[in-house]
């Protein structure tokens, strides 16, 4: 529903090292793209640039035809939502109250919850499967549940772009799959998705495109089967992998190969 264009983005936290160098990226409206790469390759920084938390030193971010830098925090939040890796909550809000925070950019400061607010909150809780938790404290639910609550909050924002920063890193296999299925489902419904993720196989299954990052640059971008090759992964991660096409799932899978154990 919204396309993202990054042009010549450069950013550094300090003068010594560049976190991002001349990054160009185009994300088609309604596409799901995965940012993959080693720790410190610039995935999170790039997400912070796209979400407006950080201002690039050079270059521009454009959402549809609007420059991100020209938008207020509220205007950005009406277009774009973010789910981070792990978030600690200072106070004992209920799950319902947290999801309702997603409506902040759409509500006047002192307005009561409107019918459309309520509908968006209910819908988001249903999609993220947190309805049963509504009255529980956000601090009392499990890690997998909490990530789904934050996903529900982001969906209640009714964004056109959803950014996710390693949202499944601390989740077990069941919750990873469940979480990514919901995200894939939203992308199919037209949401533009950018997700930083470590699990290459999961990325290949859930996303239309993969952007491979290395030392602050995007070194390759395209369909999973083109980008995820043994050679490119070796360059970016310095590991040997086996890459294959799964016969029944129809996607690329990546198996890390530990160096052979010395024979005894």
């Amino acid at each position, binding site marked *: 529903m919204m396309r993202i264009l990054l042009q010549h983005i450069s950013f550094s936290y300090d003068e010594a090292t560049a976190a991002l160098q001349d990054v160009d990226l185009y994300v088609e409206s309604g596409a799901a793209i995965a940012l993959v790469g080693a720790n410190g390759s610039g995935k999170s920084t790039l997400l912070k640039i796209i979400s407006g*938390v950080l201002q690039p030193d050079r270059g521009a971010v454009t959402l549809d035809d609007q420059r991100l830098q020209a938008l207020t925090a509220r205007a950005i939040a009406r277009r774009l939502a973010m789910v*981070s890796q792990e978030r600690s909550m200072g106070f004992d*809000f209920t799950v319902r*109250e947290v999801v309702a*925070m997603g409506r902040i950019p759409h509500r006047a400061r002192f307005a009561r919850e409107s019918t459309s607010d309520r509908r968006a909150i209910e819908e988001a809780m249903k999609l993220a499967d947190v309805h049963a938790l509504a009255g529980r*404290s956000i601090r009392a639910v499990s890690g997998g549940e909490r990530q789904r609550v934050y996903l529900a909050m982001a969906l209640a924002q009714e964004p056109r772009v959803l950014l996710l920063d390693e949202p499944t890193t601390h989740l077990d296999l069941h919750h990873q799959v469940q979480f990514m299925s919901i995200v894939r489902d939203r992308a199919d419904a037209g949401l533009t998705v950018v997700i930083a993720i470590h699990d290459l196989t999961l990325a290949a299954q859930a996303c239309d495109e993969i952007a491979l990052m290395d030392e602050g640059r995007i070194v390759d971008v395209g369909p999973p089967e083109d980008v995820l090759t043994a050679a490119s992964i070796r360059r970016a991660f310095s590991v040997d992998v086996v890459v294959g096409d799964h016969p029944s799932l129809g996607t690329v899978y990546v198996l890390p190969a530990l160096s052979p154990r010395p024979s005894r």
Partner: protein
Amino acid sequence: MSARSAAARRALPWILLGLLVASFLAGIIVGPVTIPFRSVITGLLSIEANGVSDIHRLIVRQIRLPRILLGLLVGSALAVSGTAMQGLFHNPLASPYVLGIASGASTGAALAILFASASAVVLPLGAFLGAGVAAAIVYGLARGRDRRTSLFTLILAGVAVGALFSAVTSFLIFLSSGGEKLSDVLFWIMGGLGRAGWSSVAVLAPVTVVGIGGIIFFARDLNALSLGEEGAFHVGVDPTVLHRWVLILTTLLTAAAVAMAGTIGFVGLVIPHVMRLLVGPDHRRLIPVSALAGGCFLIWSDMAARTVFAPAELPVGVITAFLGAPFFLYLLKTRGVNL
């Protein structure tokens, strides 16, 4: 959230309002001289009536009423500052005094008493200036090279600057070598409403109304800040703007309250906690009920302060701590540590 607790949440503001009215009347009646209820009403409404003594009328209008109003203003200012500070730092241990404001005010007050006068104008002015200087130093130190204020640095700077000003105050007390001025300084530091008069009410009322109103304006944004600074930004709340305004408003509220009544402890720490247990963490409910509860609490504490050892007057800070600390511990024990 059960239906019963939801009903309790809705009822609480009205209960507190009722309690406030009761506190008002009780505060006027109770004291070294007990005022008959009839005199209270005629005195408040300024009605001429037979059989009501002029002395009672004078006590109601010139002594008790301003004192109660000052208690209400100081109590609500401290409670709301505390609530806002806890929201800002998303830490339930924050209080209005974490940024060294109280220590700065104490130094200012001590300087005023020792080198100028303890008059109703000079003393609050000295305390307010002291609070302002402390706040300016803390914010100046915490402002990084990128011109953004780090909350973490702010707390550390607050602790250090607070300690420095406390040392200066101790040194001033040492220099004063006893005497009446020393007891003036100590009494001020322990806090009390004994200096209340219509002039202090007239100064504090607009500041408190603006300060609390401003913080209520930002209540929703403080909720969003529970998601962290980036989390708040992602739902459209600019944390830099929020920090700046909430810090300005809390500094104003705290400095004005401390200037009028000294450093009364515990109100700004305990009231926000207790109210959060009762109505939950939503600042849109929490801030108004904290204001009401803080006002009531200080009015009752002050009543105790001026009656327990009458005609001598205890520093009200002693009472707030005596009442606040055990109640706080009781809540911790019964409601668990999930504050």
